[in-house]
């Protein structure tokens, strides 16, 4: 059994060595398999290296990793271990000293595994995938990997348009992975048992699994500078690949005995997932469309799992997770149940993505044992007109009503999230952001006078990100603002907000958003660009201070490509790089939603009225059940 042994001095020479040693409570150690490896140097079980292309502290905060780790390790024939991207200091040490990338559990080099799986949560992590393959001594391109190399697969939100990374993966898993990844592991098990004879035959078998996309079975076609579609190279491969979903969330495997890191991580708490999908249909939000249909877990299941997790993990905080927690129908029952169960335990609940109303404030008061944290609102746009365009079902009156309650209840810190560059946005909409912030500031003093408390200095934070049109949204064809347009909008808003000392303005980097749109809507021509950029030293692009915009633009141009090609408005009838992927929601529906956006007409939430988006094809979910 090969083991990577990082020396004490090398560990001590890097920041947070605890990232690299493993040994956490809850980590799975399969003694029988390790023994087999130690005595014979190999094992009959399928070995999967689950890779998170970012640092340990971020990867360990990811629920998908904990879920799929359990799914795979629940199988006797499989041993799944974790791998993270070494930080820049460790990356350097590993290259200098010739250490290969290794797994946390057994410290095995990742090239000794049968499956190397990546979870792709955000496009900016792509170069870290290449870093991990590089440190693992695994050839980058699937076409360069042989039967003796691991099968490299991926999944996660970015899998819905994997084309910019298509060359690097043997198989791509679309949608929710709990069942799919186990099916993949069992096919790989058969391949391993038969002596790994032909990788091509394995890929044919994998392609038969619903939700599995084999990029090598298709070839991208171009006319001039335009992508025009995929040509199928393998007869048996499907024309379109439908994403997978879990039909019964109450009976799907859930990690109630999660791995608890020994060092502090970004989100240092246990998680409970309420439901999948979102009833809202905000037109800019990719998650809102790719996660359809809405499926809830029952409050009974959640309560039982929440109690188990709190006891098993020892965490003193349980996070409630979903795209919009206030829309969970059993929220009161669940929170009452959990709070009763946690009585006297010194445990708290954290409740992100709550819509602020009386119930929410009351709940926040009950769950917080510490000082009043800030309230967060995401109006996303500054005027009602633009909020109707994006179908953000929230109006100024709602926000003001919520804040009136909150201010009277003692809150004085408010965070407001907006996007700049949304389709149809004008300077008037940008000014609307400043107006709203100023109104909120005035409201605080007004409430203080009415209720009769001595006003503190309210803290109002306005935060803007740059809009990036994403696949599978009604805005997937929209153009992105240019750098100049973004900067003008941002500068104008900054000037307007400068007037008040209670308002703080923070903004997201423009340049990284300009690169992200290319990764989000790009095609296979990007593969070579990303690889070249990586070779020029780009990685950890998700970290603003590590991101090298100029290098990326230069590399893009060297390949005869421009930002404009991917950021322009796409023609509604042109072939999209993700056209062969089916998420249930139809293009017809997305087109209709786009037209409604231009008409400034809103679409009601799924629960109020079904808008026939197409996700009914899965024959589950609230919208289907109610018919």
């Amino acid at each position, binding site marked *: 059994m090969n083991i990577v042994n990082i020396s004490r*001095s090398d560990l001590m020479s890097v920041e947070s060595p*605890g990232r690299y040693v493993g040994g956490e*409570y809850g980590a799975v150690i399969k003694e029988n398999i390790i023994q087999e490896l130690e005595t014979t140097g190999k094992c009959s079980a399928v070995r999967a290296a689950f890779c998170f292309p970012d640092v340990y502290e971020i990867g360990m905060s990811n629920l998908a990793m904990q879920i799929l780790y359990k799914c795979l390790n629940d199988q006797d024939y499989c041993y799944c271990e974790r791998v993270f991207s070494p930080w820049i200091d460790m990356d350097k040490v590993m290259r200098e000293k010739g250490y290969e990338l290794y797994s946390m559990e057994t410290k095995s080099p990742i090239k000794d595994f049968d499956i190397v799986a990546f979870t792709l949560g955000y496009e900016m992590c792509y170069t870290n995938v290449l870093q991990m393959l590089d440190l693992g001594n695994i050839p980058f391109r699937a076409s360069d990997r042989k039967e003796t190399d691991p099968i490299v697969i991926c999944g996660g939100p970015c899998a819905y348009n994997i084309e910019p990374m298509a060359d690097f993966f043997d198989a791509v898993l679309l949608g929710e992975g709990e069942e799919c990844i186990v099916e993949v592991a069992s096919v790989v098990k058969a391949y391993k048992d038969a002596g790994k004879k032909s990788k091509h035959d394995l890929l044919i078998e994998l392609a038969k699994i619903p939700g599995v996309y084999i990029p090598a079975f298709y070839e991208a076609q171009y006319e001039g500078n335009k992508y025009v579609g995929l040509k199928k190279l393998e007869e048996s491969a499907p024309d379109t690949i439908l994403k997978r979903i879990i039909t019964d969330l109450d009976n799907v495997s859930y990690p109630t005995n999660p791995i608890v890191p*020994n060092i*502090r991580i970004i989100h240092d708490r246990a998680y409970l997932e309420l439901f999948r999908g979102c009833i809202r249909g905000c037109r800019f939000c990719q998650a809102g469309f790719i996660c359809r249909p809405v499926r809830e877990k029952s409050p009974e299941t959640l309560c039982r799992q929440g109690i188990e997790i709190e006891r098993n993990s*020892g965490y003193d905080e349980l996070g409630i997770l979903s795209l919009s927690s206030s829309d969970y129908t059993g929220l009161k029952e669940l929170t009452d149940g959990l709070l009763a169960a946690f009585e006297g335990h010194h445990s708290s609940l954290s409740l992100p993505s709550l819509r602020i109303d009386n119930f929410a404030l009351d709940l926040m008061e009950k769950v917080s044992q510490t000082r009043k944290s800030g309230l967060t609102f995401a109006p996303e746009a500054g005027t009602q007109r633009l909020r109707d365009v994006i179908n953000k079902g929230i109006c100024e009156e709602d926000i003001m009503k919520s804040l009136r309650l909150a201010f009277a*209840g003692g809150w004085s810190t408010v965070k407001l999230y907006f996007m700049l560059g949304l389709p149809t946005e004008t300077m008037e909409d940008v000014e609307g952001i400043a107006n709203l912030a100023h109104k909120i500031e005035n409201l605080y003093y007004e409430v203080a006078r009415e209720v009769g*408390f001595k006003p503190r200095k309210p803290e109002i934070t306005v935060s803007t990100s740059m809009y990036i049109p994403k696949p599978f949204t009604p805005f997937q064809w929209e153009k992105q603002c240019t750098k100049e347009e973004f900067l003008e909008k941002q500068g104008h808003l900054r000037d307007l907000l400068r007037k008040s000392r209670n308002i703080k303005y923070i903004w997201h980097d423009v340049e990284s958003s300009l690169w992200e749109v290319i990764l989000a809507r790009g095609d296979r021509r990007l593969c070579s660009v990303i690889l070249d950029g990586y070779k020029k030293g780009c990685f950890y692009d998700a970290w603003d201070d590590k991101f090298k915009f100029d290098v990326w633009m230069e590399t893009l141009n060297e390949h005869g490509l421009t930002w404009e090609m991917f950021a322009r408005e796409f023609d509604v009838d042109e072939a999209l790089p993700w056209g062969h992927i089916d998420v249930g929601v139809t293009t017809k529906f997305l087109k209709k939603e786009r037209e409604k956006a231009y008409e400034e007409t809103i679409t009601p939430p799924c629960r109020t009225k079904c808008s026939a988006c197409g996700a009914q094809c899965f024959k589950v979910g609230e919208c289907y059940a109610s018919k």
Partner: protein
Amino acid sequence: MLQNERNLSMVTLKHQTEYVCRCLFERVGDASFVGHLDLMHTFDRAIRRAGLPILYSQGYNPRPMMVFALPLGVGIDTLGDYVDISMSREVDVNELMEKVNPFLPKGVKLYGGINIDEPKNSLMSVVTIAKYRFTAPEIKSKMRNLVTRDELRVTKKSKGKLVETDIRPLFICEVPDNETSEDVFECFVYAGSSKNLRPDVFLNALCEYEGYDREIAANCLVTRLGLYGGEYPELKDIKGLL
């Protein structure tokens, strides 16, 4: 609840009685790369998993009531450290040990200790001496040479400024009658809040004065073997110092 009521509830919190378990613990192997603060969370979570009632501090940011005898640097193993863990009801220290150990991560383990009422002196204030083992190639003779010197001046950072101090007085003696190999050096040094010799500072002096290889020193395994009160050679067991 309105703001004022809330503030009121914060000041009327009553004092809770503490039931302290003074435990001996070890931290070895990969677990040694976990920082001192993180070790506190590790114990807290393990005790919670065991379903035992650890006591939390009052106020805005409740923390588990836990006091370590002497901070433990990252990368240093220990076989004999102490921690005072406060519980909200009386818990037998042996019960604590038996119940909590299965829930601790690999490399961290509690040993028995004693139950005490609220200690009059904090655990940190009673520690005066530590016993260390340094394991590295040919380290014994080099260390022996080093400590024959009258003075060991090293520069260290204190409050952002570089200051020169003599660490020789912080070294007490080599562990007597010790039949260890050439690669092992065991010694007593001053430790605690008033006088403290950090093992990394000591190793650094070894490189500086004896020309010991820095790369080898960086790979030296440092193990804290024990903590004591009193004055050498009259060592006092920490358990007895309340």
